[in-house]
């Protein structure tokens, strides 16, 4: 992309450059993507004099062009006449000007948003996927529910009632809005901070709490540590702890969906830290080569436990990495429920209609600690945390918008919160008092059918437990 640098500003040069861009009278018919970044004056002024009428309608061009992901961005050509290098992988124009592509654009990729911090729509040409009352209220209610569940379950861990928990504070909109933009046939491969998506799809509070307590009603049969939810019924693949392994797996699932010609896509979540794993490269590269319908959603929350993004990578975040794989990408404000919803809707449409991967980088600060095993005040300032917690809370922001539309009142708010709290307390009480999964479940599902050695082991174990009952926990059923 040598073209993004500044050039000589001679008129001749501009005309020569522009002649290569298809200008057909009206600005609205402009093809190609360099109008995608109207906020990069460096580029615009080098290539088009400000007096040209096209420039003033850049915003509208932006709107028209934003889904044209399959079209490559045009570059200023600076080639040696018509000499091309015919090389494996395609023709490449020669240049006799030695120019290194810079490690970064002079401006960072801008962040798409719809709502301002005050919950009002951004005035100049807010373009987004409209959300009706029913959808908005469900999105909002689920965000509140997630926040309250996280608060209670974090406390439960602190009280020693569960062993571990991870909160989603600050990222409620990022996950719930993403799920809202998908259909139930789209398969989600989470990392570990996406219970919002599962909540949206109908996983009940009782089911969440049962998994954390690992009791006999846990759909996961007590096999996994807390927050490692999974439900094939909800098309939510079981959380797997090793980071980024879900990315090439997502490419594989998407490829299989494609072979089945399903009207669905795969959505894989990853954090900013996870993009450093080798599997990130493999997953994106493969998805692009296989033309698999997968949306990679990177929840850039600024921190990978104690590692800030400045120590994680030196690129302009994660969004720029998509282009390296030939993947269209967007950066979106993860605290803006409407922006996330619109971006994921568009990404889904691209992924399925064009059968290709898409990368979405969502920026939403991790307000909570990494997990209950972490105290983030040790590596970041209380002011920083407080700022994002109060001034930039996605739940508050969305509530303001919903209220402005007349769809939500203080009464609704009070009712919702008290109802959730009551349900949650009940769920915790029920889950805590319940028996653990029965002994048989220790040995099932290792294989499709239990092998003889495990059948023997179970028999032996039962004999021992029956003989020395006091040595074994009383809340594990022998049935």
């Amino acid at each position, binding site marked *: 992309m040598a073209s993004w640098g500044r050039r000589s500003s001679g008129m001749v040069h501009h005309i020569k450059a522009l002649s290569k861009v298809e200008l057909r009278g009206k600005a609205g018919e402009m093809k190609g993507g360099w109008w995608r970044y109207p906020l990069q004056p460096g580029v615009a002024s080098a290539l088009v004099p400000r007096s040209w009428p096209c420039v003033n309608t850049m915003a509208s061009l932006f709107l028209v062009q934003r889904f044209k992901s399959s079209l490559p961005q045009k570059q200023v050509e600076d080639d040696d006449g018509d000499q091309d290098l015919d090389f494996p992988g395609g023709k490449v124009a020669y240049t006799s000007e030695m120019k290194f592509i810079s490690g970064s654009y002079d401006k960072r990729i801008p962040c798409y948003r719809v709502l301002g911090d005050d919950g009002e729509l951004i005035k100049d040409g807010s373009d987004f996927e409209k959300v009706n009352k029913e959808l908005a209220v469900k999105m909002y209610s689920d965000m509140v529910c997630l926040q309250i569940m996280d608060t209670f379950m974090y406390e439960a861990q602190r009280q020693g009632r569960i062993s571990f928990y991870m909160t989603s504070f600050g990222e409620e909109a990022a996950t719930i809005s993403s799920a809202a933009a998908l259909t139930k046939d789209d398969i989600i491969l989470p990392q570990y901070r996406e219970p919002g998506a599962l909540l949206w799809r109908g996983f009940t509070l009782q089911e969440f709490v049962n998994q954390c307590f690992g009791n006999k009603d846990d759909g996961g049969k007590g096999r996994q540590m807390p927050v490692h939810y999974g439900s094939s019924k909800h098309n939510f693949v079981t959380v*797997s702890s090793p980071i980024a392994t879900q990315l090439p797996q997502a490419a594989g699932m998407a490829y299989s969906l494609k072979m089945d010609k399903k009207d669905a896509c795969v959505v894989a979540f990853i954090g900013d830290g996870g993009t450093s794993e080798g599997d990130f490269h493999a997953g994106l590269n*493969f998805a692009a080569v296989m033309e698999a319908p997968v949306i990679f959603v990177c929840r850039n929350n600024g921190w990978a436990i104690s590692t800030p993004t400045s120590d994680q990578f030196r690129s302009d975040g994660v969004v720029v990495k998509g282009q390296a794989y030939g993947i269209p990408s967007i950066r979106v404000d993860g605290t803006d429920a409407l922006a996330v919803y619109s971006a994921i809707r568009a990404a889904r449409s691209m992924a399925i209609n064009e059968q290709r991967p898409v990368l979405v980088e969502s920026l939403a600060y991790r307000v909570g600690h990494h997990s209950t095993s972490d105290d983030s005040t040790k590596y970041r300032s209380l002011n920083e945390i407080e700022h994002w917690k109060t001034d930039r809370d996605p739940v508050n922001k969305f509530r303001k918008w919903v209220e402005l539309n007349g769809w939500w009142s203080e009464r609704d708010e009070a009712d919702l919160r008290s109802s959730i709290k009551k349900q949650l307390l009940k769920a915790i009480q029920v889950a805590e008092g319940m028996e653990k999964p029965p002994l048989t479940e220790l040995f099932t599902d290792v294989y499709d059918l239990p092998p*003889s050695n495990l059948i023997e082991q179970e028999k032996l174990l039962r004999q021992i437990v029956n003989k020395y009952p006091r040595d074994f926990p009383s809340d594990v059923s022998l049935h």
Partner: protein
Amino acid sequence: MLGIVRQKMLEQSLKKIPPAVSVLRSYSSAAKQMTIRDALNSALDEEMSADSKVFLMGEEVGEYQGAYKITKGLLDKYGPERVLDTPITEAGFTGVAVGAAYYGVKPVVEFMTFNFSMQAIDHIINSAAKTNYMSSGQISVPIVFRGPNGAAAGVGAQHSQCYAAWYASCPGLKVLAPYSSEDARGLLKAAIRDPDPVVFLENELLYGESFPVSDEVLDSSFCLPIGKAKIERKGKDVTIAAYSKMVGYALKAAETLEKDGIDAEVINLRSIRPLDRSMINASVRKTSRLVTVEEAFPQHGVGAEICASIVEESFAYLDAPVERIAGADVPMPYAANLERMAVPQVEDIVRAAKRTCYRSVS
């Protein structure tokens, strides 16, 4: 060893290797011969034909016809959607295959050698092996990982390690190691049909070896049970348990021992996980002596596991300590003379068997 290498060179120099079926048609005699390569190729072909969900992935499996020509002809027959040439990333394509298996299709992933599976071992162990358990049975992983395993000839340390013990120690995986063409066909078919993840350990030097196969073996529905060993040679004086190439060595050792009046029983393990403990124990209870043979490193190996099993279940039947033959505890050297010293030879097995019989080994 040199004989096998020469045979392999001859195979590779043939420009066109005729497909398995026509080779067999040209043999009209009762005992048909089939190479391991053809056995594997025909097994893959038949399983892909029978089940449209089965597909192949790996480096060079398509256009190149397979690094060792195991997948020859399959790209032409089934097309690029079912025979995928992958970029060079074991971690990548293993992850992709595991994801596809989660979805419900049946990938057969080829590693150019299991030494390279190290770059993908997290996907094999933490994803493929454990997911059915972690997801409480909601996500099964019907995947097969296959490729050459163990020592070849003159390929050095990073191309010669045997991974049977590593994979066999992990619950959730099944690990198979065929010896003959019958094993190769039957076990690969069983592996592909199995809903659990299977690690299928072949041997590069055996690819060109021919074995007799019956009509039953050649039938497309032929399948061997996973978890059952085979008694290759019945005997009464000492049990020799081996897998893969070492079965051939054990059989040769048995011939030598016979001349010295020792009647050895040779067990072809076939299945490393699950291990056929009952058959091995029954055999040792009959002979009272055991020699285990493997090319792999000795510590924490298959032989160690078999020995533990015998000690736990048949200790009173042993008349001599268990002898364990394994590769030298060094990364495999390259120089031919050193390499020969680093892997078991037939003479080592003979001497070990004699020791269990209290015979002098001079």
